[in-house]
């Protein structure tokens, strides 16, 4: 039976256990992702950013709520083309991220990967990925490694509603179940796979309904509520760590921008995004809940906003000033040794 977790707010057992410092951290992560994405959106429009960019604005609660439970050294995540949020939530430095997006040699991938391939393996971030559905099998591997090493590590695969239909994803769910891997599969259902609505493309009523078919628990989570995500992810990750096998979470929300930057989004209803921004926004809701319950003050949150704005400004300035990779970089690092 698919479980549904929504609008639990601060009363949820896991969430109410968050300390002030942890709450600020959660807010900071979400704010950092939002500010990063909004700024990349602006910069992309000027033409300074090469290639394709896919923004995570609106979805912050998912990456944040899940990664809050993960360790840098023993836990891994795999992401997709919409990977900036996952990177930031996993602790990848934003200055190299910004430089990478601008195609500079100071980027996390030395300018050789770009937005869709930002990675930091030292932080267990297996990379944003340009192939839909590529993450889940990779996470079966990292989870297998953690199981064999016995370090209690967990692998989390973030993928979209589009990827949820991909054969690779289905195979990975089956394998994770059959091998009893410490894995969590997070289907981020933002309503669209490119221009196609998930209500049309996903044959099951909910992605999470498929979990039973793969021998694991399935949970639907309100993706605009970071506490609901935190709660559901906490249970799934704990289950995985303790040898209880994988879980499929379906986080439901919406993306504020298009599939890619430049997407006119004429496939969407006109009120959808304004409504979400006004009534559902994860940052707004967070602020409302923590201030109403007296856990944090507006001043504390405003301070975070200011710090984040400063950091983003620095990141963009430095990225723009950084050098592009030179001819000497073209042929390097194809192999460890050829």
């Amino acid at each position: 039976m698919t479980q549904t977790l929504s609008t639990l707010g601060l009363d949820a057992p896991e969430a109410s256990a968050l300390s002030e410092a942890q709450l600020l951290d959660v807010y900071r992560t979400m704010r950092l992702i939002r500010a990063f994405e909004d700024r990349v959106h602006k910069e992309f429009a000027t033409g300074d950013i090469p290639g394709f960019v896919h923004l995570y604005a609106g979805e912050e609660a998912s990456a944040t709520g899940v990664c809050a439970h993960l360790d840098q050294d023993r836990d891994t995540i795999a992401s997709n083309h919409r990977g900036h949020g996952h990177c930031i939530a996993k602790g990848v430095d934003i200055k190299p991220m910004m430089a990478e997006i601008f195609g500079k040699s100071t980027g996390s991938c030395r300018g050789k990967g770009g937005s869709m391939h930002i990675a930091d393996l030292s932080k267990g971030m297996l990379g944003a990925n340009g192939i839909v559905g590529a993450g889940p099998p990779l996470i079966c591997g990292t989870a297998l490694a953690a199981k064999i090493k016995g370090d209690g590590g967990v692998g989390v695969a973030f993928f979209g509603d589009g990827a949820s239909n991909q054969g690779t994803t289905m195979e990975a769910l089956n394998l994770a179940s059959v091998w009893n891997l410490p894995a969590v599969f997070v289907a981020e259902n933002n309503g669209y796979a490119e221009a196609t609505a998930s209500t049309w493309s996903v044959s099951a009523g909910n992605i999470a309904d498929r979990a039973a078919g793969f021998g694991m628990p399935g949970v639907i989570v309100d993706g605009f509520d970071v506490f609901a995500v935190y709660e559901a992810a906490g249970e799934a990750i704990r289950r995985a760590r303790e040898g209880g096998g994988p879980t499929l979470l379906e986080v439901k929300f919406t993306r504020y921008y298009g599939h890619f930057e430049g997407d006119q989004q004429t496939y969407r209803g006109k009120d959808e995004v304004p409504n979400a921004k006004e009534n559902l926004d994860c940052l707004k809701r967070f602020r409302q809940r923590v201030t109403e319950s007296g856990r944090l003050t507006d001043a504390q949150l405003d301070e975070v906003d200011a710090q984040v704005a400063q950091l983003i400004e620095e990141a963009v300035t430095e990225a723009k000033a950084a050098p592009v990779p030179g001819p000497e970089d073209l042929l390097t690092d194809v192999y460890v040794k050829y």
Partner: protein
Amino acid sequence: MATRKISYREAINEALAQEMERDSTVIIMGEDVAGGAGGQGKDDAWGGVLGVTKGLYGKFPGRVLDTPITESAFIGAAVGAATRGLRPVAELMFIDFVGVCLDQIMNQAAKFRYMFGGKAVTPVTIRAMYGAGLRAAPQHSQALYPLFTHIPGLKVVVPSSPYEAKGLLAQSIRDNDPVIFFEHKAMYDVTGEVPEESYTIPFGAANVVREGDDVTVVAIGRMVSVAEDAAKELEGSGISIEIIDPRTVSPLDLDTILESVKNTGRLVVVDEASPRCNIATDISAQVVSEAFGDLKAPVKMVSPPHVPVPFAASLEDLYIPSAQDIVNAVKTVTEWSK
């Protein structure tokens, strides 16, 4: 080194066992590599569909993993696990099955190091059966090493004998880049002298199997044996051929081939892979480009016709390049004049 006569199959099994003994991070996974998961009989009933991995399941508990028939998941898992400190040796039962997991090899494993700016190490080995001769029909008889040779970031190994198989597989496993290791299915019972101890054969170092002065014959995999048969017959006609086994088609030791062509002035390349864009075309083009002045005749390529591998024995025997085909090609280049 003390040698004794063992089969190609036994040599591969021995390489796996010795590497697993030497390095606890080496694991094996694939369909029926133990062969018996979940059944009422033995857990390792098969040891691989043709018995290549027999005995390893018992010798290395927890390190020989059967998989469901889900190539994209377990090949992807092997790749993911390789980024986390394991040295997986995944078996793709027949290279013909690569169609269902090509992404994991082509877009993931092959590209991690470069697109992550030199920060990824992916020491995965993928073993696969290839080749015609067992009447296995079109979907189980291809020689697809050209496909992988084409992709930067992969290494491609094609052993021609039991001695080559053991040394090259040990090297493949120790190598820190993704390696595709091709085992000819019709050679498993072929025997040859193989040292008892562990040894490696370096990549990118061709073997001059037989010295000769009249024609350089480069042969891939099982075609080396066929070339040796042709050599004996040609001896009778007073023609001496120099047989070169590249061992690895990526990296390719072009220098050894060029050195030989400088001496003989004539080149024949024997490749059982389908003729368009196979290794024969690649080597021929490179040699003509680099050593046009050394050539006294056009380069001849001995490959099958551009057809799927037929089932009927009468047709398959026509399909596979024969010793006679090689003899004819050699005579064409020795008899050639403007």
